[in-house]
C-alpha cells in the first residue's frame, strides 16, 4: 500500500510549504497547500512520464521536422503552469472548495447532490470501476464543452489559441487561453455538482488520462489501427481535429480520450492522415508569440467578437 507520490507531496508540504506559510503568517492555507502539493507532485509526474514516452516517439517517427522549434517551448511553459504551477492551486481553491460549499448548501435544502456511488452503492470500494465510469461521463462532458467551443464565435476566439500552433507536439495539450481554462473549470464544476466528481480520489488514474491527452497531440506518426482508433483516441485521429482545414466551426474529432462521442454524433473523421496543423485566420502572435503575447492576442480576438457580431453567433467556417 505504498503511496510514493502522496509521501512526496507530504515531503513538499512539510519541508517547503509549511515553514514558508508559518513565516508568512499564512498557516490558514495549510490544508489548501497540501491539496496543491498533491496536484503538483502528480502533475510533475505526468510531465516526466509524458516527456519520457512522447519525446522518443516524436524523434522516432515525426510527422513534421522543423528547423526552428522555438514555438514549442512556449507550449512547455503552458504545461508546467497547468500541471504543476498555479492552475492546480486555482483548481483546488476555487473548484474543490466551491464544490463542497455548494453541495452543502443543496444538502441543507434537503437535496443531497447525487453521486454515482449513492446511485449504485456497489461501487463504494470499487475504485477502478468507479473511476472508469466517472472518466466516461467526464469524457462525454468534455466532448460537448469542446464542440461548443467551436460553435460560438466568442468562445472560438479564446479556443483558437489552442489551435494556432503549427508545431504541434505533446506539449500542446495545455496551451489554452486562461479564460478558456476558466470556462472549463466552471463546466466541470457543474458536472461535479450533478454527479459528484471526486478529484482527489483517483490521482493515479487521472495521471493516465492526462498522459493519453498529451500523447494525442504528439508530433508522431502513430495510429492505433482500425479497431484501436475506435476505442481510444490516437495522435493520428486528434491531429485531424487540429488540421488547418478543420479549424473553427467545421472541425471534427472533438473527443479527448474516447472517440465514441464523435462516432455517435457523426463528427468522427478517420480518413484524414497527418494533416498540417494551425489556424490561418488568427493573428501570428497566437502561434509564435510569447506566453503573454499569446494571452493578449487571444483576449483581443475575444473582445473583437463583441464588436463585430452578435454574441453567440457561430464561429467562422474556414
Amino acid at each position, binding site marked *: 500500500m505504498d503511496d510514493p507520490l502522496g509521501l512526496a507531496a507530504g515531503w513538499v508540504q512539510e519541508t517547503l510549504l509549511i515553514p514558508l506559510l508559518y513565516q508568512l503568517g499564512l*498557516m490558514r492555507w495549510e490544508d489548501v497547500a497540501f491539496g496543491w502539493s498533491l496536484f503538483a507532485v502528480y502533475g510533475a509526474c505526468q510531465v516526466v512520464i509524458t516527456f519520457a514516452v512522447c519525446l522518443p516517439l516524436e524523434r522516432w517517427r515525426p510527422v513534421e521536422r522543423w528547423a526552428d522549434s522555438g514555438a514549442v517551448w512556449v507550449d512547455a511553459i503552458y504545461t508546467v503552469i497547468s500541471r504543476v504551477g498555479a492552475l492546480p492551486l486555482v483548481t483546488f481553491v476555487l473548484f474543490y472548495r466551491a464544490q463542497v460549499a455548494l453541495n452543502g448548501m443543496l444538502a441543507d435544502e434537503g437535496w443531497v447532490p447525487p*453521486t454515482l456511488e449513492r446511485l449504485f452503492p456497489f461501487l463504494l470500494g470499487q475504485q477502478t470501476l468507479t473511476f472508469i465510469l466517472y472518466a466516461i461521463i467526464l469524457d462525454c462532458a468534455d466532448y460537448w464543452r469542446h464542440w461548443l467551443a467551436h460553435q460560438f464565435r466568442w468562445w472560438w476566439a479564446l479556443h483558437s489559441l489552442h489551435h494556432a500552433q503549427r508545431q504541434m507536439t505533446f506539449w500542446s495539450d495545455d496551451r489554452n487561453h486562461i479564460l478558456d481554462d476558466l470556462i472549463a473549470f466552471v463546466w466541470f464544476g457543474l458536472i461535479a455538482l450533478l454527479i459528484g466528481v471526486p478529484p482527489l480520489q483517483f490521482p493515479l488514474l487521472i495521471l493516465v488520462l492526462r498522459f493519453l491527452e498529451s500523447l494525442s497531440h504528439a508530433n508522431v506518426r502513430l495510429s492505433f489501427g482500425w479497431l484501436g482508433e475506435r476505442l481510444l483516441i490516437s495522435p493520428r485521429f486528434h491531429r485531424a481535429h487540429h488540421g488547418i482545414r478543420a479549424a473553427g466551426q467545421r472541425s471534427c474529432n472533438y473527443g479527448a480520450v474516447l472517440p465514441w462521442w464523435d462516432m455517435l454524433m457523426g463528427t468522427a473523421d478517420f480518413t484524414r492522415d497527418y494533416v498540417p496543423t494551425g489556424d490561418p485566420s488568427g493573428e501570428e502572435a497566437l502561434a509564435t508569440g510569447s506566453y503573454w503575447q499569446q494571452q493578449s492576442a487571444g483576449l483581443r480576438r475575444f473582445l473583437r467578437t463583441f464588436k463585430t457580431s452578435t454574441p453567440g453567433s457561430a464561429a467562422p467556417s474556414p
Partner: protein
Amino acid sequence: MRRALILFLMVLVLPATAHAGGAAFIINSAGASISVVDMATQQEVRRIPVLREPHHLVLSPDGKSLLVGDTAGNEMLFLDPATGAIQKRMPVADPYQLGFSPNGKVLTVAGLARNQIDVYDAASMKLLKRFPVVSTPSHIAYSPDSGAVYVTLQDSDRLIGIDLHKMEVLWNQPVGKTPAGVLWLNGKLLVADMGTDYVAQVEPATGKVMAKIQTGKGAHNLFLSPDHKILWVNNRAGGTTVSLDATTLKPIRSYAIPGGPDDIDFAPDGKLWITRRWAEKVAVLDPATGTYQTIAVGRSPHGLFLNPKAPTPVP
C-alpha cells in the same frame, strides 16, 4: 479425558483471545476511507470506503455508534464501534468537526467549508439551531455543565462562545492567529493557535485571553490524558508533541513527531496514538522512552478512535 479437558479449556480461552486485540479507526481524509487497525499487531487490517472527504469522528453518548463526518460527501456515517460495520448514513451538510456535549443532549457540528455551526438534538438528530459564522469553524469544546459550546474560527483568528440554553452567541473574541484545537481545562479554555507557537488561555465568561503558554511552532491541537494529569499539544509546523503538567501548564517534555502531528487518542498501555497528516502514518508514542512505532495507513490520516475492547478486526 485429558483431551476433553484441554478442549474444554480451549473453549474457555478462545473467545477471550478473540476479543483481546482491540480495533483502532483512523480516518484518511484525502483517501476517502477509514483504516481499521488491529491494536495488538499494530497492522492495518482493512479500509472502509466512504464517499469523499471524512475528517473527524466521535462516539455517541450511548457508546453504540461511531459517528464519522464526511465533509465533501455531505454525509454522516454511523459505524458499529466494535466492528466498523456501517449502521446507517445520514445527509448532513459539511460535517467537519463533531462533538457531543458532556450530558449527551446535543451534538455540535462545525461546517468548516460552509462557515456554520449546527447544534443538533443528539437523540433525534434534529437540527435545533444554525449559527452562521465568519469564518471556518474548526474545533469544538464544551463547558463541563454542557451550558456552552466554544468553537474556534480558524480564518478570522477568533473563538466563539454559544449559550446552549438560550441558543445565542455569548461572545466572539480574537484569541490569536489561526486558532485550531480548543479544550476546557480547570475552569479555563485553552486554544492552540496554529499561526503562533503558543496555546492561549482564555477566560470562558468573557473570551478574553489571559495568558499564552509557549509549546512550539504551529500549535495545532491539544488533548488531556485519561488521568487528567498531562496536557498534550501537537505542534504542526514544529513537528513536535509536547507534554505539559495539566495543573501548572509547565512543559514537561517535547517529542519529535514529524509529518504534521494532528489528533491523539490514548491506549490503555499508556501509549499515545498520533495521526501524522503528511506522512500517511500513525505514530504510537511511548512517553516513557520517547520512542514511537509507526503504522502505515491511508492518505492524510486525521481523526482517530481507539476501541481496546473491540474484537480483533478481520479483513
